[in-house]
């Protein structure tokens, strides 16, 4: 275990002791962070890892003496270079933020002011605090933009945030955090919202730049494999407590606690799927072309099919057209060319014109279970609606069926009386699954159903979907950008890029070498539980680039 006593005093940049933070919820103060102690030495990167609700973000911003609305620091001590930040006056704290400690948020798109140019936001703190003149700060911006491999570093600052892509914007935010050359940067899940291929670029850029400037950092993530690439030490948090802390390599190779082992196993073990021999084609998409506003072509000649009882995964980065394909199949976006066939029959492109029976046979589960469930309806009512709508069930018959459905999704009968607010994220997604199952569909379209969930919870949901498929012979169309999910659940894989199918086929064919170049890029971008992975991949890509191979097709 690490204790600041063992490290030299002068080297210790941040030292947090027995930190308690409370949040005001349901008319009482509840503890979010329960007595956490940590320290960060100069030039050191500490990884904070845990599932949602572990308190890692709260600790992250508390290092800047800041708490979100409705939260407060109850007790403890936050020493930054020996100065106590807990209880310090607003002006002292404000002057500290920016020049000494800076912050990189999860979503750069939301955290940049949409109304101001990037350079203006970059120089703001430096100019206000008199660290640099505007011209000096602008020069520094260009230098950092270049260092972070942003395209056109001299001009990019003249753009507004919405004119820059997500991955680039995230790098701009890293640059902004470095503006005044701070001693400590808090990275709060800076790559979580990005595609795997973009994540690797941002991660590489962050690692490069903090090593170059010798900046200390706290790197917060729910993904142990990501943290392992960048952190010197890792602290695992759960429910506001520290689980364990240790050197990165020792943590990955030899974790002490069961919980850490569980987190580590998330990426490793995934169940094998059963072979299906059915050849009954449920859904067929033929040469579908779709566009938004008749201008921007988002799907270009996409064909695929789904066999009964099988899972087809549609994989690709954002903008690849995978969600649009789901919109075409469900009738939300009629295609401009091509057709969708269900059991061999061409179906109405418009949702409104489709018969009820067809609607019943195709169901959908969404990414955000929070918004997909009416918060004012009890589970009983949520599940009762499709039963009544499709089968005209009521009274006792319906109640019995609801209990059956709850049993299928492994929830106790008393959940029927609960409201969505009284369920956890995973339980809500289970209810969404049950609602889709209530219609007794043949095909369920799952749109990123696990990406809003913690890894361990997501694993449970995937297991459940697998079990239900074996029992009910339902087909899944699984839309995801997460290749681990794909490996775990699919029989068939469709890889999409810029509206086209790059390749498709049996899982074993796609995921075993030799790879198609774009599939290879996707696969090699998934972080591995190995602290050397990032360096290896970047080196490999550099070699390829030197040879003049362009990975992006």
């Amino acid at each position, binding site marked *: 275990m690490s204790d600041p006593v063992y490290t030299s005093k002068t080297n210790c940049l941040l030292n947090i002791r027995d930190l308690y933070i409370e949040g005001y919820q349901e008319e009482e103060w509840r503890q979010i962070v329960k007595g956490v102690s940590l320290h960060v030495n100069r030039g050191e990167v500490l990884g904070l890892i845990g599932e949602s609700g572990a308190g890692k973000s709260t600790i992250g*911003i508390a290092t*800047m003496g*800041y708490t*979100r*609305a409705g939260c407060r620091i109850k007790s403890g001590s936050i020493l930054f270079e020996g100065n106590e930040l807990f209880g310090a006056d607003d002006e002292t704290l*404000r*002057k*500290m*933020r*920016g*020049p000494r400690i*800076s*912050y990189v*948020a999860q*979503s750069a798109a*939301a*955290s*940049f*002011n*949409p*109304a*101001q140019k990037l350079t203006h936001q970059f120089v*703001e*703190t430096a100019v*206000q*605090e008199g660290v640099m003149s505007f011209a000096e700060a602008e020069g520094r911006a260009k230098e950092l933009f270049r260092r972070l491999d942003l395209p056109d570093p001299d001009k990019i600052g003249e*753009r*507004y945030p*919405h*004119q820059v892509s997500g991955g680039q914007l995230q790098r701009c935010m890293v640059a*902004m955090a470095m503006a005044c050359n701070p001693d400590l940067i808090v990275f709060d899940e800076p790559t979580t919202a990005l595609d795997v291929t973009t994540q690797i670029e941002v991660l590489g850029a962050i690692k490069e730049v903090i090593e170059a400037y010798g900046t200390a950092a706290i790197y917060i993530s729910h993904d142990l494999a990501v943290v392992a690439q960048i952190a010197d030490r890792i602290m695992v948090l759960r429910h506001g407590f520290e689980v364990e802390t240790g050197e990165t390599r020792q943590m990955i190779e030899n974790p002490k606690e069961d919980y850490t082992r569980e987190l580590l196993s998330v990426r490793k073990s995934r169940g094998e799927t059963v072979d299906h021999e059915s050849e009954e084609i449920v859904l067929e998409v033929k040469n579908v072309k779709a566009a938004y506003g008749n201008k921007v072509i988002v799907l270009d000649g996409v064909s695929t099919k789904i066999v009964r009882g099988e899972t087809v995964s549609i994989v690709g980065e954002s903008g690849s057209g995978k969600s649009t394909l789901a919109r075409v199949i469900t009738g939300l976006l009629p295609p401009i060319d091509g057709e969708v066939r269900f059991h061999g029959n061409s179906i109405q492109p418009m949702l409104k014109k489709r018969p009820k029976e067809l609607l019943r046979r195709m169901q959908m589960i969404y990414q955000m279970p929070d918004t997909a469930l009416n918060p004012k309806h009890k589970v009983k009512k949520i599940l009762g609606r499709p039963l009544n709508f499709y089968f005209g069930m009521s009274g006792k018959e319906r109640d019995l069926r609801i209990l059956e459905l709850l049993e299928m999704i492994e929830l106790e009968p008393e959940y029927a009386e609960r409201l969505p607010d009284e369920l956890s994220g995973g339980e809500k997604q289970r209810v969404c699954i049950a609602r889709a199952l209530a219609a007794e569909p043949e095909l369920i379209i799952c749109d990123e159903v696990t990406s809003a969930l913690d890894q361990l919870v997501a694993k449970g949901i995937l297991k459940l979907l697998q079990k239900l498929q074996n029992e009910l012979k339902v087909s899944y169309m699984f839309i995801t950008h997460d290749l681990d999910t794909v490996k775990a659940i699919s029989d068939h894989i469709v890889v999409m890029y810029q509206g086209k199918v790059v390749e498709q086929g049996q899982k074993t064919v796609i995921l075993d070498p030799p790879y198609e170049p774009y599939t290879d890029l996707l696969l090699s971008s998934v972080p591995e539980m190995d602290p050397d992975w990032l360096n290896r991949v970047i080196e490999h890509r550099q070699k390829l680039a030197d040879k003049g191979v362009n990975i992006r097709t």
Partner: protein
Amino acid sequence: MLFIISVMIFIGVEALPGDLAESILGQAATPESIDAFRRALQLDLPPHIRYLYWIGGILQGELGTSLANNRPIADLLGARIGNTFFLATTAAVVSIPISIALGMLAALYRESFFDKFISISTLSMISFPEFFVAYILMVLLAVEFQIFPSLATVSEGMTFLERLYAIALPALTLTLIVIAHMMRMTRAAIINVLASPYIEMAHLKGIKKARIIVYHATPNSLSPIINVVVLNLAYLVVGVVLVEVVFVYPGLGQLLVDSVSKRDLPVVQASCLIFSAVYILLNLLADVLSILANPKLRHPK
């Protein structure tokens, strides 16, 4: 839009009780003279024909002639419109900067004594009827202290400053009435934006509070602010009727009131149409401005 309104104005004016011929000819009217008067003014034609004559004239830029004194309506309105716009502009120039500044200050010192004080005082201003505010100001500033004239008489040949001095009280009344609305909307729009992640980011960048309000929050809350400002501008032009009457100011509002009492229907119709046109144009302007206020639309990818 304006066409539908013209129909509604016409129907509304038609529905006014009383008869122009009877009220102009007065007690001495004989049935014969009333008949002749009506024929001369085409009042005997059915309403839809008269509507077509009227709207046809307006489309050709011809507002018609006043029934009461036979002068062309365009001449009658000309100077009046200028006066009304002068009053409205003066009130706007004073009230818009004050209310936006107050709104920003209130957002900055949210929940403080200052915030509550301006909230309460502007709210009480808005809750009094405008003529009441006008009379109170008159009693205080014209009778008690005699700083400003109680009657806002303007005439040809007055200098700009003399005019400003003359309309000080009506302008002040209008200002007090519109400030509350604009200031509260500005405050609400800014506070709404303060919950955004980029505001938290600005705090974590160590930006000063006042700068966060001015530089980060306000540009992103422009759309609702523009809307409420323009809506109040429209009110300043259209809603001045009572204030003009109280201060006997020769504007469009007073002309409207006079014409109604004289049953001078063409003038009433023309004034109403102008009010509606201003109202619609300003609302259109608000829509255009709020689109322009969105950086995503101003600077496409």
